[in-house]
């Protein structure tokens, strides 16, 4: 919304159309967990989804790509998706990082503080299974070792277009949109 106002001030539309966003994202690599029920979220996610991003020990590349989602090029707010400051306001937890030992408790608490129904997305290769840090004494080898995960977005880091398209695909799979 804010970005839309900004376009008028900046004077030029910068945002990528949805089709181009999808084309840039590549195909078929978003992995839905077996527990994710198609349509299980009913209509609640329709055009209004709030995301709490949790960095569970990432190298910070994934966070910068999430930040880029709100820039005038990707402008994820135009799809009714936005990031919020508290898990209390969130529908989705977007978790990055291999979950460092020191972040495991904080991640569990954040999960419990998020009201249901909710989705957890593990974003990035190390959130999937620890990635390059797999086996280290200080990590837990992936988000699903700590909290239940509904879907995975791969990449190191996944590009903003892929995260955006991934989130939309996951929302679509879990909701009755029409």
């Amino acid at each position: 919304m804010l970005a839309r106002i900004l376009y008028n001030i900046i004077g030029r539309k910068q945002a990528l159309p949805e089709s181009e966003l999808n084309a840039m994202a590549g195909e078929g690599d978003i992995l839905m967990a077996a527990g994710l029920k198609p349509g299980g979220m009913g209509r609640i996610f329709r055009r209004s989804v709030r995301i709490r991003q949790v960095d569970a020990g990432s190298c910070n590349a994934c966070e910068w790509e999430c930040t880029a989602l709100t820039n005038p090029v990707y402008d994820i707010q135009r799809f009714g998706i936005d990031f919020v400051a508290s898990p209390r306001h969130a529908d989705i937890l977007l978790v990055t990082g291999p979950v460092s030992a020191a972040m495991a408790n904080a991640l569990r608490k954040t999960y419990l503080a998020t009201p249901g129904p909710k989705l957890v997305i593990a974003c990035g290769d190390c959130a999937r299974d620890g990635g390059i840090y797999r086996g280290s004494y200080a990590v837990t080898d992936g988000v699903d070792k700590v909290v239940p995960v509904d879907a995975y977005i791969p990449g190191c880091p996944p590009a903003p277009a892929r995260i955006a398209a991934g989130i939309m695909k996951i929302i679509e799979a879990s909701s009755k949109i029409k």
Partner: protein
Amino acid sequence: MAENETYKLTDNETYREVAPEEFRQECARLFDNGRGRLRMMFAVDSRETGEGFNIYAVFSHPGKDLFEIVVLKDLEEKEGGITFPSITPKIPAAHWYERQIADMFGLLPEGHPDPAPLVLHGLYPPGVYPLRRDISHDQIRGLLDEDKEDLSSFMKVKGEGIYEIPVGPVHAGIIEPGHFRFSAVGETVYYLDARLFFTHKGVEKLFERMGFDEGVKLAERLSGVSSFAHSAAYCHAVERMAGVALPIRARAIRTFLLELERLYNHIGDIGNMCAGTGFAIGYAKGALLKERLMGLNERLTGSRYLRGVNAPGGVLADVLENPAETLRTIEGITGQYKSFIEFLTGATSHMERLDNAGLLSREIAMALGATGVAARASGLDDDIRTAHPHLYYGQLVFESHTRMKGDVFSRMMLRADEAACSLAILKSILHKAKGKRLEGDIALPAVEVPALGRALGYVEGPRGSIFYYVSSGRDGRPFRVKPRAASFCNWPLMPFAVHGNIVPDFPLINKSFNLSYSGSDA
């Protein structure tokens, strides 16, 4: 290829072994009452080669392209553990290094004024020291006890009207985790206690089980937006250890990408400072310009974060292949950058917030060993590119920038100056490539790592100097890899920069430093 001849390796590294009683004196001599700089300090567990534990302290002196390394041997075993003489009372910049050594190796700094645990958050029982080589990842994991997590030792400020604001580790923005305790009087921060190392991933120990080639990937993932600088410093160390000189084109490409990384960071940071003042248009313009640069990164290297390019012995992508086309893009970005800075400096409401916020004095910056933008904006001329020129920097004409005041305004304007300098360097390299003056291979065929070798590697990253120490074992595999991220030096500055400011200015001050948690936590 004539220029290779002047590029001698490890000529600027001297090691001197000392006994514990000489250690303090030798370090003090090299520190030279603050004129010298402590670059990094770390321990090595050489018990398997019969040398016991060693402590290395790396010093350099402004104006001299030389690293003088003091190696402490024969640590004393006393009641309560193995100790070494702390140099922190004389050299405050050593304080975090020594606490890190105590946590990771169980070597205790005798005489350290604040020897509290730093890295491990009490997650492991006493006596577990992860970087000792006789304990494996799995063994340490088996001893992990999350319920023992201890975050209690915060500085308590007492007095009328003083209250505490706890923040984190999960923050409100899309940023990295850390825990901050503000002791505030009304709106004014009296004291800030920062608890970091939430993203500690055991990287140093992971390096030891990888090969030297594979280690590049891990170095790239120490800190997202310094991927290239970290991998370049790591490769530099491996190449120096192997005693090889890079072809001129490889050196030019690394220099080019280091500057490109600095550019997208500085421009992104200038834009992010607008988010700190709530100046949405400035933020959007900065984000847009940064996105263009990320697109250029991807076009040139296939990675928005310049990953997968560095390798010991050179680079894997010929980034200077189409200099004319890249030059056009850079020219376009230069124009947009100029109008962006003009727009920001004309926005009085934004610029007024930056003035006098987050002051960091030269004395504090010097004592705590600040590096990069944080140091240069407080009047300390510390730039690896000019102090220890390597890669292609020796062939370029440029100067390192400084500002004297040390506030957020200085840090923003310094970034603006440096971004302009980076743009000029990029153009200069592209012109040379266009004139066919950088012809040659982009990598050496192979780099043979010697057994029992060691070397330092370094670059000036976007956030400041980055150092790597690497050594190989008898089998020629990594024995010890110690990264030292710029942010590790700069985090201890935050409490001083925040003191006396209002709480709402903290995000702005924080953004003006833009420190990496992951790089520092390792």
